[in-house]
């Protein structure tokens, strides 16, 4: 691994708010850790729902959580613009709007987020186009502003 690659990784960390990166291959193991880890770790150590398991919001994934290992940092995020309940299909009997591999762009409805009895059609932001690489929510899951719904690459 050369300095150029390391620089790219640190830029990646900066851009994506990562505090720690660990890369391990047969030949090499690299671990990068950013300052301010203390507070971030404290936050991460908090249960996602500090109380009231019954609260619907409790299940909402904290948007700031680092992307799980295996995700390509170059993938673009499709986030929820509103708190509500995410639905992956237009009605219970229908097929999902999209799945891993579906080609999407800013005109493609990828899911619904229901809030105040209104089903909001969610489309990728302008400029995001590519294949769905990952579906990050389950059907019927409560989401908040910023919750990552899909990764597109």
């Amino acid at each position, binding site marked *: 691994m050369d300095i150029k690659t390391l620089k790219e990784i640190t830029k990646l960390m900066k851009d994506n708010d990562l505090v720690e990166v660990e890369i391990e291959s047969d030949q090499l193991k690299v671990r990068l850790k950013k300052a301010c880890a203390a*507070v971030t770790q404290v936050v991460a150590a908090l249960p996602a729902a*500090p*109380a009231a398991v019954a*609260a619907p919001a409790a299940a909402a994934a904290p948007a700031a959580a680092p992307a799980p290992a295996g995700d390509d940092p170059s993938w673009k995020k499709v986030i929820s613009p509103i708190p509500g309940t995410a639905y992956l299909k237009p009605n219970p009997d229908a097929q999902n709007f999209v799945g891993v591999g579906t080609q999407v762009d800013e005109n493609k409805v990828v899911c619904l987020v229901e*809030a105040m009895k209104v089903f909001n059609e969610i489309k990728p932001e302008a400029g995001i186009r590519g294949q769905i690489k990952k579906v990050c929510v389950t059907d019927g899951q409560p989401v908040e*502003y910023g919750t990552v719904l899909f990764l597109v690459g």
Partner: protein
Amino acid sequence: MFKRLLIANRGEIALRIIKTCRRMGIETCVVHSTVDRDSLPVKMADVSICIGPGPAKQSYLNINNIIAAAELADVDAIHPGFGFLSENSHFAQVVRDCKIAFVGPTSAAMEALGNKAKAKTLAHAAGVPTVPGSTGPVASPEDALKVAHEIGYPVLIKATAGGGGRGMRVAHNDASLVSGLMQAQREAEAAFGNADCIIEAFVQRARHIEIQIIGDTHGNVVALGDRDCSTQRRHQKLVEESPSPVITPAIRTSMMEAAVKLAKAAKYHNAGTVEFIYDLERQAYYFLEMNTRIQVEHPVTEMCTDTDLIRLQIEVEAGAKLPFSQADIKPYGHAIEIRVNAEDWQNNFSPCPGKIGVYAAPSGKGIRVDSHCYAGYAIPPNYDSMIAKLIVHGKDRADAIRLLEQALAEYLIEGPKTTIGFHQRLLKDPKFLANQITTKYIDEEFFKLKPA
């Protein structure tokens, strides 16, 4: 009582509401922007929901997303705090239309009292003193003289079409009134195409004194004493104290009665503050405006009356009757609140957002600190620069000032510049100590004096 309450606010007041809810056994849901993710209210609330990015317009002022969050969290009440949507009658109406209790006055009362001109008319009708003057434009110099003789000099000649200080002049006697009026009319005609001028009492030396009221939904309204907020900079309150050290008990009682009268006239319930201007020369008070929400300086009243205003707000909204009558309210001691802001006070109070290093707040008998800050907390640049409200309660004003000096000396904040130094200098200012300041003092005199 409510089961779960959503707080449509952030920072210190969000935390303040959470604390009272905990005491009342009410679950809390706090909404927050992305930049407030690590804030203390988010950590302390039972549930937190992100409603948008940093800019308030897209988060704390985003009615749509807040209502969506309220539905998602299944709350039965919303507390708006102060600022943001707290005086937005449309928001209050939307909340109530969703069958969620809004902790605040009705939209109608908010509109009636939130608009300055409407409120003044209502106050006048209810017999609450407003700034005396001509009922409309004066027709002639004789008319003007008649009004001036009624209300006494100095008077203000004000072009009805003017504003922001333009088309205003002061007259101290008959001669300057007659010549001033003619000049003012000429100027107004030239500048605004409308020569109409009114005559009003000119308050040369003013104190800002306000009355805290609380009403229930059964028609009861009680005044909880006064607060003197005359230490201001560019109309921003810097220090609030209770009781006002410049008015007599009789005037205080009269102001409290006036405030209750106004609230009853508007069928007002929940917490509110009736602001008055107090004319030190005429020793008279005039209605200024009403704030239809809880205020930043409410702890001053809480310290002197042993009440929890947030609790009362929630209780009356749930339908409870006020647990006291006017006769039960006997404020005691002297309370002072100062605002510790992340501002460079020696450089025009310019905001200094940024990360707090070491943070150690004072503590002790008679000392209260309302703050959402902690060591390691980064004050975001998106919102106000308040770090904490420091409130003290002593036997009398001298005792409270002594406590405040101690508390300020103990306050340790590393990182951003703060206004602690300003307050320390203020507490040594002879005019502040002797209650000789007016609302213009900080802007016009304080910084010209050499520190002692």
